């Protein structure tokens, strides 16, 4: 597929920028909190990949759905997630999105059309197809976007879901965030293809590649895929070439070297937020002050949210066995 000609309006550029800044600051603070031992468990940070979430999500409505991954904070934020409820969930507090039961890897809000982050690599891909099926079944024009990684593209779940979506021509867009690594294994060491978009032909759907460090490029490519899906034109596979700036888990991880410092630096030099800000200012969309003001407001909001999370209570032990069933059954069949 040729590169998209769809270009964001100034307002859309500003919108994307704001989403990206929100993600960046959220993640930087979360990273500090986990390194400082204040957040339990494992965090997979999205820093560096913000253009993908923003460039896709700006096309979606609250009624559209997404599915996400273990690296899900960015998607949730770009889809409208509430910082307070997110941090509270990362802290495992009763006030969190999942009442403290989910944590980072399961942070989710069905009311925002977020069908989960997911701790199982590629686990959410078939779920996205199910949501897309429901949208079509009910004759809506909703679209489901499914985020997954380069590593995930090697899972059987991806294959089965892609084939089914193409067969039924469902309104779903498969967005592969190719950050060149599955955990600590580089792409050439986990698959022989360079472009995951090449897999699309095997399912009979369009395969598209976008520069995942460029919000406008993602905007264009995603916009076309989403519009096609909305119009009944079936699924697409959109591969966004991107990079995570921090380790697979946490900020610095275990310090076992598996990627070149030079490679990391090169990609950091392509910071999607810095690039977008350069453009915003150059094209007179925002002044440098206005850009700074975005950051300030986000930082302030985050400080509030963290304070909220820290002050929130732990879940009550009685909630441990709640939420397993919608219709719990007492022994003997009595409800």
């Amino acid at each position: 597929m040729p590169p998209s000609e769809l270009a964001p309006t100034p307002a859309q550029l500003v919108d994307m920028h704001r989403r990206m800044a929100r993600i960046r600051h959220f993640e930087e603070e979360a990273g500090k909190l986990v390194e400082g031992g204040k957040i339990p468990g494992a965090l997979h940070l999205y820093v560096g990949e913000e253009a993908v979430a923003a460039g896709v999500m700006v096309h979606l409505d609250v009624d559209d759905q997404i599915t996400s991954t273990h690296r899900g904070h960015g998607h949730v934020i770009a889809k409208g997630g509430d910082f307070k409820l997110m941090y509270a969930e990362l802290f495992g507090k009763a006030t969190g999105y999942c009442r403290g039961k989910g944590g980072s890897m399961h942070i989710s809000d069905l009311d925002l059309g977020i069908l989960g982050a997911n701790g199982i690599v590629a686990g959410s891909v078939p779920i996205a197809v199910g949501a897309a099926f429901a949208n079509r079944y009910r004759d809506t024009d909703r679209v489901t976007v499914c985020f997954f990684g380069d590593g995930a593209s090697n899972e059987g779940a991806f294959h089965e879901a892609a084939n089914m979506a193409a067969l039924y021509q469902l309104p779903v867009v498969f967005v592969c965030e190719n950050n060149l690594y599955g955990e600590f294994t580089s792409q050439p060491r986990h698959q022989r293809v360079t472009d995951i978009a090449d897999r699309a032909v095997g399912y009979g759907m369009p395969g598209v590649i976008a520069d995942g460090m460029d919000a406008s490029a993602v905007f264009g490519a995603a916009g076309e895929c989403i519009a096609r899906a909305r119009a009944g034109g079936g699924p697409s596979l959109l591969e966004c070439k991107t990079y995570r700036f921090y380790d697979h888990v946490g900020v610095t991880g275990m310090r076992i070297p598996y990627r070149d410092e030079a490679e990391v630096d090169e990609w950091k030099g392509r910071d999607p937020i810095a690039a977008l800000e350069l453009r915003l200012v150059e094209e007179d969309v925002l002044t440098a002050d206005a850009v700074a003001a975005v950051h300030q407001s986000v930082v302030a909001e985050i400080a509030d949210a963290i304070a909220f999370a820290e002050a929130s209570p732990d879940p009550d032990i009685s909630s441990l066995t709640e939420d397993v069933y919608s219709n719990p059954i007492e022994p003997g069949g009595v409800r």
Partner: protein
Amino acid sequence: MTATDLPVTAGRKLPFVQAVPEAIAQCMRDDADVFLAGEDVAVYGSVFGTTRGLLDEFGPSRVLDTPISEIAIIGLATGAAAVGLRPVVDLMFMDFIGCAMDQLMNQLAKMKYMFGGKARLPVTVMTAAGAGTNLAAQHSQSLEAMVCHIPGLKVVMPSNAYDAKGLLTASIRDDDPVIFIVNKFLLGATSDVPVEPYEVPLGLAAVVRPGTDVTVVAHGRMVGEALAAAEALASDGISLEVVDPRTLQPFDLPTVLASVAKTHRALVVQESVRYAGIGAEYAAQIAEEGFDELDAPVARLGAPFSPVPFSPVLEQAYVPDAARIAAEARVLMGT
């Protein structure tokens, strides 16, 4: 509620294989959100015949043949349910559950809990278990123990056509994921099945034959074998009470304990491999809660620790039957 409160039958005989599609059809007529998907469930009406006629009545948008993609089938159900539909999906042979196990155990079963309770997942997964049809190791297993161990799922297994229709209706109407297990050996078995829709409540065991000497807890095909054993022993003055849990998880311990309080002896029978089978759970619960009532250890019958053999003579020796049940009952009686 007890077994005697169940709707009376209307005098119509129907085989198990037709009770299943009748339940699905009635639920589909009632509720436009119910759809059916699976391998060869539409045009062919399932290799077991359990979905025959549904495509004709409901058309291809509500009755779908899928690719051979068990992961995608369960994902389809999970995603569609998460956005409001009430899917019924078919996994054909229960042996294939291994292909879809991640979606079943990590997605469908856990989504509600991980999301802090927000999701409602009214999914029914139909599948056919059981040996005795000379289909060998990969088409004959009874794997209910695996799914019973997964919080978030409910598991039912009817032993006759009446329960099949009523349990399936209850399963489809239930707001939680239910694994509905058919024993393929029973498909031709006929019972009185009312024409009108009815539910057999989930979680309620049935005392299918009253007796005084030994409580036999049996499910699926083993219920018939237990009844035959009861018949055979009756002439020797040994009276078996046969209890069919019907819902395998949650287990209706109160009904079973009431029986044991009368008989003081219990034999748990399962067609599946005995080791770590669901019968171990039943036996353990009976012993824990009924210890003082028991005059003998709870006995268990099940298949030996091997895959299911092809040879008809070996397969017959593999599956527990009336003769072995009767023999065990005699041992319990010390006769």
